[in-house]
């Protein structure tokens, strides 16, 4: 049996992350990869696929249900344990920190599974970095909008030009040891209250 023969099931409610994991598995030569986003009916999927490895995100609220299948279900025969070798504490730690949990058929050799886990860990980490960057970019954009609005209010109410309005915001921020966006935010709120 070579690498590509391993049946891998990826369960992830986040379709983008699931696609990233699948891509990583395919690039590593795993072609027998199934991705499901929903846990409804997963018992039948597991029964049909008999996966050697199941990768699921650690925050998935349905993990308790998934684990119960291994304990209770008559249809899921194979005993499954998390990770092949429990002594590999470093990998387990890295996986939990990254938000990956994985279930592996008992008896499957560690050297066959570790690369899959390592890949999943690095892709999960890459995904959360990406999500953080996206969040940061979004809030930067939001901040710029707030400052622009405050500038416009000053220009309108005080007859300032844009440069002067921005200079006033910046000076106030420096004097009060606050961020420009916070000064802009309170200015907008003040204007809104006065308008009412």
């Amino acid at each position, binding site marked *: 049996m070579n690498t590509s023969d391993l049946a891998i099931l990826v369960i992830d409610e986040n379709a983008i992350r699931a696609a990233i994991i699948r891509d990583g598995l395919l690039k590593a030569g795993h072609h027998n990869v199934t991705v499901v986003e929903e846990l409804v009916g997963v018992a039948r999927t597991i029964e049909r696929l008999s996966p050697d490895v199941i990768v699921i995100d*650690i*925050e*998935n*609220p*349905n*993990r*308790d*249900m*998934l*684990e*119960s299948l*291994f*304990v*209770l279900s008559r249809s899921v025969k194979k005993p*499954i*344990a*998390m*990770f092949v070798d*429990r002594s590999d*504490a470093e990998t*387990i*730690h890295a996986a*939990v*920190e990254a938000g990956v*949990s994985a*279930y592996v058929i008992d008896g499957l050799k560690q050297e066959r599974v570790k690369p899959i886990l390592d890949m999943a860990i690095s892709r999960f980490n890459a995904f959360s970095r990406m999500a953080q960057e996206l969040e940061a970019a979004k809030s930067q954009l939001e901040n710029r909008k707030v400052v622009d609005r405050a500038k416009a209010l000053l220009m309108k109410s005080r007859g300032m030009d844009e440069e002067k309005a921005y200079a006033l915001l910046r000076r106030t921020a420096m004097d009060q040891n606050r961020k420009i966006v916070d000064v802009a935010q309170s200015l907008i709120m003040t204007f809104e209250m006065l308008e009412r």
Partner: protein
Amino acid sequence: MQDLSIGFVPLLDSAIVLAAEAKGFFIEEGLNVRLTRETSWSAIRDRLAVGSLQAAHVLAPMPIAANLGLFPLAPKLIAPIALGLGGNAVTVSAALGAAMEAEGDERDLDPAKAGAALKRVIAARRAAGLPPLRFGVVYVFSGHNLELRYWLAASGIDPDRDIEIVVLPPPFMPDAVEAGRIDGYCAGEPWNTIAARRGAARIVTVKAKIWRSSPEKVLALPADFASANEDTVSALLRSLYRASEWSSRLENHAELASILAEPHHLNVDAAVLQPLLSGTLAVSAKNERTVEDFFLTSAKAATFPWQSHALWFYSQIVRWGLCDHSAENAEIAKMSYRPDIYRRALQPLSTPLPGASLKVEGALKAPTPVGASAGGLILGPDGFFDGQTFDPDQVGAYIEQQKTTI
């Protein structure tokens, strides 16, 4: 200041932990606690196993199952304090509730009557060729699963053959029962009353009546962390104990409900939570009922980690084929609960501590003063709705005797 990360799952019975943080009991003991809300018991267990949590609010049977190696990535855990008694209920869909009422359930939460009615409903469904009823529980190694099964079996219903049991996260239960994906469930509050208030379901019995004065959640710590940090563990138990006393006072219930209600805690309306703290449940859309000892945080030694509780959970884990019985396994189960650590930590508070670590479950038929390190400790009534008792010295015989029932 000692830094600690403590995990919890958003449930009414996380009250003691949330109160300890909100009311500053941790800080008073020199602990800088960061609470983290978790989405599953599996995730809590994983984080305890890798050390990213130093303690967690967990289902009472979890430390036992962990120490017996019954689930993946099983860390060695100890439970040196319980987080209260009671707190669960059994809820059924409006349709099943009506069918049970037609078969003699009197809507009084009596487990014997509700169980007998359910048995007749199941027989009628079988005769009509209908599929088995499906019940949800939150986890395999949970009081919910084991107490639901106990109630069913004592009512003459085989939980493995006569119905189907599935696992679902508690917040999903109300929707699942409303959508008809399950016919009933056993879960912690507020997930029963939420479905009942909607009119989608009805509460038919409660844990406090199936096994009165029984623990629902305990605080679990990795065994190696606990033995390397004895003073920290003692400080942690003292702060939780003081939070449990604070939580039990009626005059604090409004504030406790608003602490629980916060978006980063349960994120449920405080008005829904507050009545639960004194045992008043919305059992259906229109009716409320007050249940004695529904959820106790302090009275009746509610935080004492009785080893007889651990052994009862063990007996049921064995009963349902999840583990084999042996003297060694029983000892592992018993030693998962650590009253010795509880006593060591609470000694300075001169609070009444039970003299014994095990008791016969079901022996006390009325509130009874018991031997303690200081006066004023009252226990009971406790025990099982079917009148059976559990003697922790006779675990093997108890297991054998249950083999002859269902």
